[in-house]
């Protein structure tokens, strides 16, 4: 594997973990989250800070995952208080608050972020394979959830919360669980990212990034694990395959979001279902 391919595979792996995590929150459990990049950033910053202090890779990854998951549960608590429509703006707000905080903190590098992050100790190809291993585990985990009673219950919560309560479902705990798992995964992605990039900037974790992740989920088909997988791979490869696509990356993302939701809200998975039906 050349180092270019290793790099590509690494990015796909990280994006997969991000998109699948958001899919659990929004796709499985029906909770809108427009601030997912903040948890990606939380994981990255936590891991980077510890890495520069000399902590080894397993510790930094764990810390990033745990931090993002913990804050995610706290944010999940806000989702319990506010109505559906408010949630979109609240989660968007979380993203801006995170960014606004991090940009001002000198000890986190301010606008310049954190640079000089130590290497993972692995060569690029091995590291790429590590990322793939994690991504595969996450994929497997999502499929497990989907076919378990947790997935069944998430479906009910997403369908009709109040009806779910009348069949004994503790809706609040399930929502918090979805948030916790999804955001922890974003934190994991952040931790993996830092060794790949060796430098992190606040702008990497902005609203546009949150939307980019949402795009992968939406185009794949919110809730469909394989759909999100396919969409993430395709959307990550697109700028690599086409020079034009790279220059107009944002335009294409926006256009795809618009067109897919307008004409096939079920995304790729919805199209596939209709073809096979």
């Amino acid at each position, binding site marked *: 594997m050349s180092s270019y391919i290793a790099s590509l595979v690494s990015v796909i792996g990280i994006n997969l973990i991000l998109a699948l995590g958001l899919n659990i929150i929004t796709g499985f459990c029906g909770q*809108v989250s427009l601030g997912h990049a903040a948890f990606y950033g939380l994981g990255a910053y936590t891991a980077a800070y510890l890495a520069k202090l000399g902590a080894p890779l397993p510790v930094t990854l764990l810390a990033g995952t745990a931090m993002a998951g913990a804050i995610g549960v706290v944010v999940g608590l*806000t989702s319990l*208080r*506010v*109505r*559906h*429509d*408010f949630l*979109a*703006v*609240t989660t*968007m*707000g*979380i993203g*801006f*608050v995170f*960014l*606004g*905080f991090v*940009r*001002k*903190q000198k000890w986190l590098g301010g606008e310049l972020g954190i640079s000089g992050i130590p290497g993972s100790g692995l060569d690029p190809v091995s590291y790429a394979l590590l990322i793939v291993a994690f991504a595969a585990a996450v994929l497997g985990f999502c499929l497990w959830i989907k076919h378990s009673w947790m997935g069944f219950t998430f479906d009910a919560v997403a369908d009709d919360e109040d009806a779910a309560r009348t069949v004994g479902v503790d809706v609040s705990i399930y929502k918090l669980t979805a948030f916790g798992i999804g955001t922890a995964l974003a934190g994991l992605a952040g931790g993996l990212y830092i060794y790949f990039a060796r430098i992190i900037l606040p702008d990497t974790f902005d*609203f*546009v990034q949150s*939307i980019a992740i*949402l*795009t992968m989920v*939406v185009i794949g088909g*919110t809730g469909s694990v394989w759909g999100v997988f396919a969409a993430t791979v395709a959307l990550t490869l697109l700028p690599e395959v086409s020079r034009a696509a790279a220059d*107009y990356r*944002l*335009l294409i*993302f*926006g*256009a*795809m*979001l*618009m*067109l897919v*939701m*307008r004409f096939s*809200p079920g995304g790729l998975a919805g199209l596939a279902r209709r073809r096979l039906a």
Partner: protein
Amino acid sequence: MLFAELIVKGLVYGCMYAMMAVGLTLVYGLLRILHIAHAGVFALGAYMTVVVTNATGSLALGFLVAVVVSAAAGTAIYRLAYQPILHHSAFVPMVVSIGLFIVMQEAFRMIFGAYGIAFDNNPWYVANVDLAGINLTYVEIAMVIMSVVLLVGFGLFAGLTRVGIGWRATVSDPQMATSFGVDAVRVRYVNFLFGSALAGIAGGLVGLLNNYVEPTMGGSVSYKALAIVVLGGLGSVRGTLVASLVLGVVEAFGAIYLADIFDRDAIGFLFLIAVLMVRPQGLLGRSSGK
């Protein structure tokens, strides 16, 4: 004097936010959609103002074109992007709106350049006046006057004219309204026309204020306008107005006192989140009554 100055500046910004936020509230109240693409209409208004003013030398003409183009664009967005998908859950139009906003931003970048454009000749940029010891530029004053005039005008329209009353009826009970002969579709068009026109004017004013118009300018204002709409209680115009002014003032103070901890954009959202934790229905929203 700093205190008073902060309040006044806060109110000025609050007026600008109000012009944006009212358009958003109108759409939400009627259709339950978070019209994020509204930010694109705002930027469109700004670009039109600059381009036409620079081409013709007349600021008035620039504003006029901005209003017309923005209103048309907003209405087109409703007709082409939202109307066909209203039967889906609210998530779908919101995502379409996000996509549309990104496309509009990129279009501005591709057509007008990434670094923005400015007025060739903008005397308003520096012209200022001292009112009771507080320094205000003419544009800031114009912003306050414009927003007051427009919003009061809208209030009168909604309260006194047949179309306005029909609009209010449709917002509170669409089925009842149509059974009384109110044309729901026309109400929607009026809604988008007016809200988008307001955004266009706001865009032009901000362009004058900063003497600079760039592709992502819609973002910051729009996100705050969304926060305001939620803060005011989603769908309540009065709540939106109050929240706009409150946010403007909170931001002005926050930018000074919290400068070391959070940047300006974050302050508004921080305030929103704090309020929602205490009052999940927003400042003036009605509580859902469990």
